[in-house]
């Protein structure tokens, strides 16, 4: 039942299956059609569905994000691709003020079923303006759902759930994951995952590592290293950042009593800050050490290879943080 696919293929299959299922679903964005996607995520969709449903836009993020919102108000289900989420800053007013708030502002009458998707976070050597994680920016806003999957199977099942959802969903992918293969992709077109549920990817009793997207892989690597030193880390793949599955983390903390949060983005007011606050509220008595955050450095992303490496969370820093909360020298 599960097949081995790259994340890129899994995302394409999710869109293709939903476009077959629902005539109102269409894809809109820069280079999604004739070019087959800047990162080839929409490979073949134009051939299958035609230009009416796979729409190449001009370079006009603010405009096409707003157009997508209007199309959703008008009864369609747009998938809006940002070539990278860095460009979504041009469109943020439409995403937050128009897509996220209108259901509330209309007393429940309107609603905006739309998916904004694309690669998020640092790729490699593309500098400050093209290397930024938007997880905490969007997760901050009521009225949005925010998903950031790791494996191909999750990417497919969660993107399908996002397309079927009645709300605006921010779907944060990762360029470095696109080419990775996972043997967990369901071939059942009706298989979707619930939005808002984290997954324990590795069980352990000594320390909880939380991560999402690319950082899940780093956390799993760190757990392997820690095991060599006798520390059993539990790795939680957050998968959704809003609504946030605090319960899965609390259950884990009741067992491990220690938490390290890992994310690519900046430390201040990040996802890790939120996890620390939530654990103060929900699991204070279970903590045997302060929550530690492993994050990107608090600087714009540098271009130089050595500096870029220093600016991003590495397996070593995760291992170090886990040992610190375990008071393990």
């Amino acid at each position, binding site marked *: 039942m599960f097949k081995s696919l790259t994340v890129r293929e899994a995302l394409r299959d999710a869109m293709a299956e939903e476009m077959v299922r629902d005539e109102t679903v269409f894809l809109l964005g820069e280079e999604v059609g004739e070019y087959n996607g800047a990162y080839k995520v929409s490979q073949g969709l134009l051939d299958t569905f035609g230009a009416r449903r796979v729409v190449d836009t*001009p370079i006009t993020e603010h405009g096409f994000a707003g157009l997508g919102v209007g*199309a*959703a*108000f008008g009864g369609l289900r747009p998938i809006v691709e940002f070539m990278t989420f860095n460009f979504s800053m041009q469109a943020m007013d439409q995403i937050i*003020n128009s897509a996220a708030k209108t259901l509330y502002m209309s*007393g429940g009458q*309107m609603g905006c079923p739309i998916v904004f998707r694309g690669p998020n976070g640092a790729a490699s050597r593309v500098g400050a303006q093209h290397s930024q994680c938007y997880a905490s920016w969007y997760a901050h806003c009521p009225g949005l759902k925010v998903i950031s999957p790791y494996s191909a199977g999750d990417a497919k099942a969660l993107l399908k759930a996002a397309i079927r959802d009645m709300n605006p969903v921010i779907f944060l992918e990762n360029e470095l994951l696109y080419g990775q293969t996972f043997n967990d992709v369901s071939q059942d077109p009706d298989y979707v995952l619930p939005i808002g549920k984290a997954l324990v990817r590795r069980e352990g009793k000594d320390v909880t590592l939380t991560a999402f997207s690319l950082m899940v892989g780093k956390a799993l690597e760190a757990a392997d290293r820690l095991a060599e030193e006798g520390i059993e880390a539990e790795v939680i793949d957050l998968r959704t950042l809003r609504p946030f599955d605090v319960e899965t983390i609390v259950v884990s903390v009741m067992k491990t009593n220690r938490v390290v949060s890992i994310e690519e983005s900046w430390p201040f007011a990040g996802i890790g800050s939120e996890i620390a606050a939530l654990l103060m509220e929900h699991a204070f008595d279970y903590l045997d050490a302060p929550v530690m955050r492993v994050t990107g450095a608090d600087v714009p992303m540098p271009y130089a290879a050595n500096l870029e490496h220093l600016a991003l969370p590495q397996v070593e820093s995760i291992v170090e943080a886990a040992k610190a909360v375990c008071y393990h020298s």
Partner: protein
Amino acid sequence: MPKLLSEKEALKAYRDMLLIRRFEERSSQLYGMGLIAGFCHLYNGQEAIVVGIQAVLNPVDTVITAYRDHGHMLACGMDPKGVMAELTGRIDGYSKGKGGSMHMFSREKNFFGGHGIVGAQVPIGTGLAFAHKYKEDRGVSVTFMGEGATNQGQVYESYNMASLWKLPIVYIIENNHYGMGTSQERSSAGPNYYGRGQGWNIPGEQADGMVLQDVMEAAKKALDHARSGKGPYILEFDTYRYRGHSMSDPAKYRSKEEVEEVRRHRDPIDQFKAYILKTLKVKEDQIKTIEEGVKAIILEAVEFAKNSPEPDPSELYTDVLKEVTSHV
């Protein structure tokens, strides 16, 4: 002047313009009494535009505008009671009191807001046009903006996509000559707004927004163009707002004489009244009956809006997300 209107249609148009005028006058009073708060942008003076355009729309057509929106809502047939109750922040308002003056919608009447960010309604209206074309429902998106909004970049992003994809949309520019306190001369280079679609091959036209028949004639032509698959059309209407930008604006950037001059010589309701009395031979007592009817509707709306309760505290956390999924 060609006869665009039957007597019945003319009387309805007169009634609708008067309803908007009286509604706004009463909103202003309620604002003074503290029953309406925050931002409240009145439409007095611009009534002929929405009433004239609404008169030539088909039921499938969609309407979207910015925050000077009470007139648009009343013109498309939304209930004055629900609009007024939203202004007073009560549960029986169109948005349960959670939206306010700038944020009301009616799916039933195909009115898509009510948007508070200058210019943001323009790409959304373009998206409504995209949906009309995608669904092949023969509808046209009528997207209103003020002349102040036309200096926002997203307007031109929209013009480009609308023309590129031949979307069925009419962009309506209500030029009341002041973007908040900044006059047209101080904000906009170039001679006009209707011509700003030229670079994208979008035809444009200017008409007197104080004369209802002129509005209708221009709107009919523009809608026919958009509906026939020829793509977008831009209409600029010369108009004037009698009140400040919002209730907190004393409008010191223009002279009293300027406002009085327009009120005295170009008022859309007075002009239309004179026209129907003279040309359509409508009787004074028919006008009187309409005026009394409007008065009663407004009084009823005010009483309703005063007596409707505030939203229950439990409403604070409702309507943030829709918790059902698609069932196609």
